[in-house]
Structures are given as C-alpha cells and as structure tokens.
C-alpha cells in the first residue's frame, strides 16, 4: 500500500515538473495517433460516403463486415501489418518495420472500420429529404453529398474521435510493429507495459494518468460537440458573406 502511495506522489511530481521522459513519450504518442486519425479521417469519411450514397450488390453484407471489424483485436491487425511489412513480406522493401510510420499505417487500418461504420451511421441519421432538397435547389451530386455530410458534421466528428480514442489506447499493434524503441517508437501504452514489467511503477502511473487525461479530453470534446448539436440553436452562426 505504502509503495503505491509513494509511486502516486512521484507520478504527480513527474507530470508537474515536466519530466522529459514522460513528455517525450506523450508527444510521440500524440504525434503518431493524431497522424493516423487525420489520415484515417481523410480516407475513411469519404469512403463511408461512397458506400452510403451508392447502391451496389452486397452493400448490406459489406456494412455488416465493417461493423464486425469494430472489435478487431489490435494484436491481430499488428500481426497482419507485421506480415506485410517485415523484410520477407510483400512490402518489406520499404524497410519501415519498427518505425513510427508503420505504426501510423497499422493504426489507420485499425480505426478504418470504426470511422467508416460510424460515418455511415452518421449519414443515415440525416433525413433523405435533406439531400433531395439540396438536389431540388440545384446541387450537383458532389454538392448534395457535401451538404448531407455537413448536416451530419457532429456525428461524423464523433466517429473520428472514437477512432482517435482507439488509436491512442491500443497497445498490441504498437508493440508488435513499433517495437517500443525508446525515444522513437515508444508510446504511452507500450511504455506503461514495459515500465510496469521493470517495476518502475511511478513512471507507469504517471504515463497512465496522462493517457486517461487524454482519453477524458477526447470524451469531453466529443460530448461537447454532441451537446452543441442539440443546443445549436442559440449559437447559429452569423451570415457569412
């Protein structure tokens, strides 16, 4: 009990004194997770639109598969990425195994289904009358899709944030393809698992607090956006012109 209390105090100290280890790892974590989230959003929100707005055979099946992949085990994605990018793998020539780049690629794959799936649900939450109205007022196909996406903006943002949450909190993939190299591919989750193993509980705790804090910030922001959605009334923007 005593040891835990000591570790707690030390952890708080590390956070507030700006421990370079703690902040280095945090910065690297944010860098990797934000990159994968931004890339994921740019790829998968449009892909979600493409799936939602087109009718094709097997659309339902595809959506079911996507939803199933929400809970894809991170170590399994890690394994696949490992197989593809390891020296002997098909993309081994790039030699990016155990780099932040490959971690970003892995995380993009990991959050893909969530962002696509939640984008699709976000879009289906918008009444079809909105798109028809846009079209009847002269919108082109692209403009009408953009209008629907704008209507669903809060739900789409939430989709992206959930993706970010998954990216920042996963450990299996980061460990397998990143390798937890200090100052290079070490992120909050991999550091916690390592430091705990080494008995450095204080550092682990400090990193854990930061991780929780980041998760909290994301949740709060997501909730605020959702609330804004409800209370959009009062703050309706001034005309832009």
């Amino acid at each position, binding site marked *: 009990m005593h040891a835990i209390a000591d570790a707690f105090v030390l952890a708080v100290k590390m956070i507030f004194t700006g421990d370079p280890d703690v902040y280095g790892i945090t910065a690297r974590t944010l860098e990797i997770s934000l990159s994968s989230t931004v890339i994921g959003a740019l790829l998968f929100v449009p892909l979600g639109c493409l799936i939602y707005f087109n009718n094709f055979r097997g659309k339902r099946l595809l959506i079911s598969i996507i939803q199933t992949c929400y809970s894809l085990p991170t170590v399994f994605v890690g394994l696949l990425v490992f197989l593809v990018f390891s020296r002997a793998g098909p993309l081994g020539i790039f030699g990016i195994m155990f780099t932040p780049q490959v971690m970003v690629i892995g995380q993009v794959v990991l959050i893909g289904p969530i962002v696509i799936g939640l984008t699709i649900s976000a879009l289906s939450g918008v*009444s079809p*009358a*909105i798109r*028809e*109205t*846009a*079209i*009847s*007022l*002269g*919108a*082109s*196909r692209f*403009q009408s899709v953009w*209008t629907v996406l*704008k*209507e669903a903006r809060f739900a789409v943002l939430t989709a992206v944030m959930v993706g970010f949450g998954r990216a920042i909190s996963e450990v299996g993939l980061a460990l397998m393809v990143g390798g937890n190299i200090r100052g290079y591919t070490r992120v909050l989750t991999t550091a916690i698992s390592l430091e705990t193993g080494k008995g450095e509980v204080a550092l682990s705790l400090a990193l854990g607090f930061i991780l929780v804090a980041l998760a909290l910030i994301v949740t709060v922001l997501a909730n605020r956006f959702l609330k804004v959605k409800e209370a*959009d*009334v009062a703050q*309706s*923007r*001034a*005309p*832009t*012109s």
Partner: protein
Amino acid sequence: MLKVERLHHSYGKAEILKNIDLGVERGEVFVTIGPTGSGKTTLLRLLGLLERPTSGHIYFDGHLVNNSERQRLEIRRRMAMVSQKPAVFNASVFENVAYGLKIRKENGASMRNKVMNALETVGLSGYERRDARTLSGGETQRVALARAMVIEPELLLLDEPTANLDPVSTSHIEKLVTEVIKKSDMTVLMSTHDMYQGQRLAHRMGVLIGGEMMQTGDPREVFSLPQSRKIAEFVGVENMLGGVIASNEEGIVDIKIDGAVVEAISNLGVGEQVYACVRPEEITLARTKESTSARNSFSGEITRIVLFGPLARIELDCGFLLVALITKRSAEEMNLQTGNRVYASFKATGVHVIKG
C-alpha cells in the same frame, strides 16, 4: 415551357402515373388537384427531375430531357421545388435561403442582397440569424418558399405548399404565391388537394385521380362542368342525382330520379344512365311555392343547417338529399330551422348532366 408526353411511372408493380400528357406555358400557373395518393407528388418529382419516369418524355423549354446527369443538372438549376413538408438545413435561416445561390457560386454582396430581399418578401426580415429548425410550420414553409424564389427559377414547383398549415398560414402562403406570380414571369406548377385553393390560384388546372389526368381546363370549367362522376365528386359537386333520361326534346331532357323529375339541358339520348349535378350555390330556397322561371322546384324538409363563415349549408330531404348553400343572412331573415318545409328551386341550365 414544359411539355409532358405519355408519362408513366410505377414503383414496383404499383402504377402511380398513367399516360400523362400535359403542357404548361411560360408564365402560367398550372394547378394539379386530386385526392391524396392520386400521384400529384410523384408527378412533381418527375418534373423536378428528382426521379426518372418509367417511360414517357419531358420537354423543358423545348429540349427533351434525356438521361445525361449533366443535362439534368443544368435544367434542374433553372427550376426550384418546394415540397409538402420542407426540410431545412441545420443552419441559420440566412444560410438556408442562401443555399441555392451558394451552389451557383453567386458572389457575396449580391447574394446577401437577394437573400435579404427574399426574406422581406416572405415577411421574415430579422429572422436571418435564427436556427431554421426552430421555426413553426408556417415559418418553415415561408423559408422554403424564399429559398426557392431567391434562385429566380424559370419554373417553380410547389407540392401542396399549405397541406400541413393552419388557415392563417395558408392564406399567407397563398398571398405570397399570388404576389410572386404577379411580379415575375415565373411559371408555376402547383399541386393541392384543396380544390378551392386550386380555384383561387390557377390559370389552368388539371384533375389527377388515380394517376390519370382526368380533365384539364380553366378552373371555372373544371368546377362547373366536370366530365365524369369521379371529378364531380372530387370538385365538390354535392348534389349528384343519379337517374335515367326519360325524354329529350330538342336538348331539354327530363331525368327520372327517385320518383322526381329533373329538367336539364343535355344532348344525351333517352334511356341513358346519367347524373344530374347541381352545385349547392345554384339552389334558391323559398318558404312558399312561388312562380319562377326556374324549371325545377322541389318541396323538402330541412334536416340539417351548418353555418360556416358568411354561409349556411342547408340539407334538405326532398325524397332525395339536396344540399343548398345560401348566405347566413338570408337563412336568418327567412328564419330557417331544422324541420321546416321549404321549396328548393334551380334552373334547368344550372344542371350539369354527366354520363353515369
């Protein structure tokens, strides 16, 4: 401006529109009336190029609308549609009205001007910063109208614009539509299930029943000379007396109805099953049997009196049911009460005979 040839549309096996032919001139207000479910909305959606017809041709401004997405968009940009229950974008009233201009890349200053003008026209000045989704039904409809008008479309399609509104909002919207029509040379194609609204607004109207355009013509013609029983029922010919032509002397016919005989003008032959249609406002009531030029006079008992506005609707049992519409004032002066016996008369020329 708009021409439609042999337009058919089905959803699966359900045939919604059958063989519609229609022409609308530039600057004309054409109103389609018909009961709910008769295909009015589908017709407007096809004409608004929101859907493609199963078969048939639509010509816009002389051009055949084909299947090219590009041409359809180009034509669609020359018209605007307001639906029965308009959807508003999750944005301010200003943004909503500006939508059509924005996607046409209108520049800021002129866009602002046009939007403000449109809002003023619909009586929503000062609403521009309000969230469009917090508006009442009537206000929403006005925003939708402003949003469509601001584009200055050549063709304005209105799908039952007042179907979900209270009477005050309805008359407001009607006034707006009339004003807009007067001010511009916009062609308007509107649908309504309210035949009186149709009569108030239309230059020409078409009766759509069961997916078929049963009759087109100027409103007065459609109302006073319906071509079939279905149309007569829909346009509110309340007195439709079924009978058989007993004689025809130089166009003056005697129609036998439940023991009574109604005199009318018709060129149909003896023995034909017909309906004698008499509009309630064509019937005059009297306390005593007076000598008049009206060829038809029946004695009947008042079974019901309903007052609405300045009018009184009087139901009579003359052996058959007859409905008369007179002013409230004259009902009061005559001191008409339920149970009273009165004489109902109407001229032979006031009877419109349709084949049964």
